[in-house]
């Protein structure tokens, strides 16, 4: 197969763009959940205050919830930066893909023109843009690995920590007996919040894995493909 016929299917291109946007959209509710963790930490502090000396051990839970909110906020900021980079990588790769397509069409037209002086500049330009494209794809892959790491840390800092604090709070609730109604409400809210955080994290993780697979397909496609294989790429 001639290199000049290599192109990436429009469907794969569309899927990668949609994949990058999709992760960001999936992750968006995390901001609401962060606000809820912060509110819950505040509620826990208020409950502690009401319990006075009896709520001393519950104060640890409240303090850890505050720490979790701070940590989650930092993690979200880091993930947002990766999202911005991801959008930039996809845009840069799309731009090289468009240029590559036009240069290849130009080469094809030049090959068909009688009396052509030289094709080497076109061939060299195609090679150069292909190199740029590979660099963008590698950057895209590195960004996805980084995103996966950040989401993993969110799972540890937010989901696991909230669940762990939920267990601690339940124990405290049991110790407090009938006086622990305020703690009961916090425990219930924490449990629901942990589930929602886990749901967002899982969906984001699924989408990252899906995008990583599309990028792998893209890597294969840019190292050798043709329109006849577009359906296979997109499958």
């Amino acid at each position: 197969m001639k290199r000049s016929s290599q192109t990436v299917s429009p469907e794969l291109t569309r899927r990668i763009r949609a994949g990058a946007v999709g992760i960001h959209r999936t992750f968006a509710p995390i901001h609401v959940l962060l606000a809820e963790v912060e509110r819950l930490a505040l509620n826990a502090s208020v409950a502690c205050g009401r319990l006075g000396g009896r709520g001393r051990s519950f104060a640890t839970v409240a303090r850890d919830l505050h720490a979790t909110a701070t940590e989650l906020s930092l993690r979200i900021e880091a993930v947002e930066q990766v999202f911005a980079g991801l959008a930039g990588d996809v845009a840069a790769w799309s731009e090289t893909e468009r240029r590559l397509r036009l240069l290849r069409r130009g080469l094809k037209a030049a090959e068909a023109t009688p009396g052509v002086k030289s094709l080497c500049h076109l061939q060299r330009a195609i090679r150069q843009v292909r190199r740029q494209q590979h660099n963008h794809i590698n950057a895209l892959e590195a960004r996805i690995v980084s995103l996966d790491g950040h989401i993993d840390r969110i799972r540890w800092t937010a989901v696991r920590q909230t669940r762990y604090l939920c267990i601690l709070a339940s124990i405290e609730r049991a110790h407090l007996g009938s006086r622990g109604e305020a703690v009961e409400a916090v425990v219930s809210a924490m449990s629901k919040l942990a589930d929602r955080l886990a749901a967002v994290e899982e969906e984001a993780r699924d989408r990252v894995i899906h995008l990583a697979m599309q990028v792998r397909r893209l890597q294969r496609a840019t190292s050798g493909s043709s329109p006849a294989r577009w359906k296979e790429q997109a499958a």
Partner: protein
Amino acid sequence: MKRKTLFNDGQRRWVVFGRDPAKGEHVIDTNQYLVVHNDRGALLDPGGIEVFPSYIGALSAEISPADIDVLFASHQDPDIISSLALWLDLKPELTCMASWIWSSFIPHFGGGRPVQPIPDKGGYIKLGGSRDLRLVPAHYCHSSGQFNVYDPRAKILFSSDIGAALLPEDHKGFFVQDFDSHIKYMDAFHKRWMPSNEAKNAWVKRVRRLDIDMMCPQHGAIFRGDDVQRFLDWFESIEVGSATHNSGDPTDEDE
């Protein structure tokens, strides 16, 4: 894409490219010009990305991309220079020239290289040791920063959008055949696209001083011989910036 040599004295050569049969109907037809001096080339209004593949195909039969030194953009429109990044992929050391008012806008078409700004009064394109390709100001005709190229040796004026015509699909030739019947293809274009009578008349006065055998617009057909003067007379006589009278106003209440 079709091509035709307009002038060739062995040292200086003008070639026009256009009438691309492969072009989509949604894209306006454009003329691209190649000027060669001592085997070094300048592309005048190298065109948009849509025509790039056909243009480079046809151009490669006239000159190797290695021998192209200059891209000249008469103004900032996408059909003029949106292919910039592709030309710079072919030859990164190409010099792209445009009005100073557009020199920081045009790099948004990509390529990562600065555009050489042309001052308002104009200047020259240096090509293959020559310095006679004059950059003639044509500001506000239609763009607020626009230049034509005049070659006293070939007596050719590249007039960019001045003289442009929206020709029917079946018009295959590069030249105006009958001036009077050609007016209908350029009348609306000039009245709508050209914003200033003052700028238009100043341009006509400036160009009347030049010795011109051919006037080459970026759209439509080329004027030869007496048709050049006919065009100048016609252009001088029309009121431009006047085609919005019938366009309506969306803020008007229709009651």
